[in-house]
């Protein structure tokens, strides 16, 4: 029974893990946030975004980036503990 349970549950768990990791990667994709910061700066400099829009977006993205960096470093330190 144990063996059957394992076979039934394991693929499910790994699928959940994969989806969870993908969601975390998407949410805390620091490269993507850095690209958005650069895009915000460029669009402001080319007059496509107003100063207030630029400042609001910059603040939002910098907060996201800080959070993403923290979460990523916490995640990587957890992996190290497991190893």
């Amino acid at each position, binding site marked *: 029974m144990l063996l059957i349970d394992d076979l039934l549950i394991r693929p499910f768990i790994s699928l959940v893990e994969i989806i969870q990791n993908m969601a975390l990667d998407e949410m805390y994709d620091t490269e993507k946030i*850095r*690209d958005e910061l*650069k*895009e915000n700066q*460029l*669009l402001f*400099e*080319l*007059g*496509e975004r107003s100063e207030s829009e630029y400042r609001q977006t910059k603040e939002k993205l910098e907060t996201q980036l800080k959070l993403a960096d923290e979460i990523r470093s916490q995640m990587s330190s957890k992996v190290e503990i497991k190893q």
Partner: protein
Amino acid sequence: MSENLYTYGIIEQEDIQMDIEGVQDAETLYTVDYRTLSALVSEIDTTEPERTDEDVQRHNRVLQQVLEFEDGRTVVPMSFGMAFKNSRTIKGVIRGARRALRSALNDIDGMIELGVKVITIQEDTINEGELRNDIVEQLSAVSVNETENDLFSDRLILNKSYLVDRSNRSEFDEAIEAIESTHTDSVKIQYTGPWAPYNFVDIHIGAEQSGR
């Protein structure tokens, strides 16, 4: 008082002293010589300056100022953050890297770097590939070398740095103006510079080993 020096770049030996708005609010730029080379420096409190947007901009602007000082001069730029204990350490660093620095100075002699970013205004109605090729062709004709930079936005169709002979600067300006007027409804261009040729010199200085 600390003797730490922040380094912006390297030029052919020359005594320069000028007012600047430098890294960590430094107000004076001067040179430290090693044989036929001079380092462009300003005083600083630390050997590990924090990388802030403001100080990176100040670093670039100081290099720009030297690049355009009097008749203009060739500068091998240092990346942001190279600060050393004192002038003796800097001389040691230049001595260690002198061949690479000399060769870089020869390679970029009389050259400046210009940056071009092109974004689309109406994505659906233009053939981006064709437009890009047209722009690249026109700019390549008036430059010596070029590097491709990161396309960090979906709206960017071109992000390049061009190495241009100082004497061809007006031809490059005209090429940009021509592109702008031809494609005025399709694209916007961000044209920046002149910069010290960051993207065309690749020198790694072993600062740690040199007692930075």
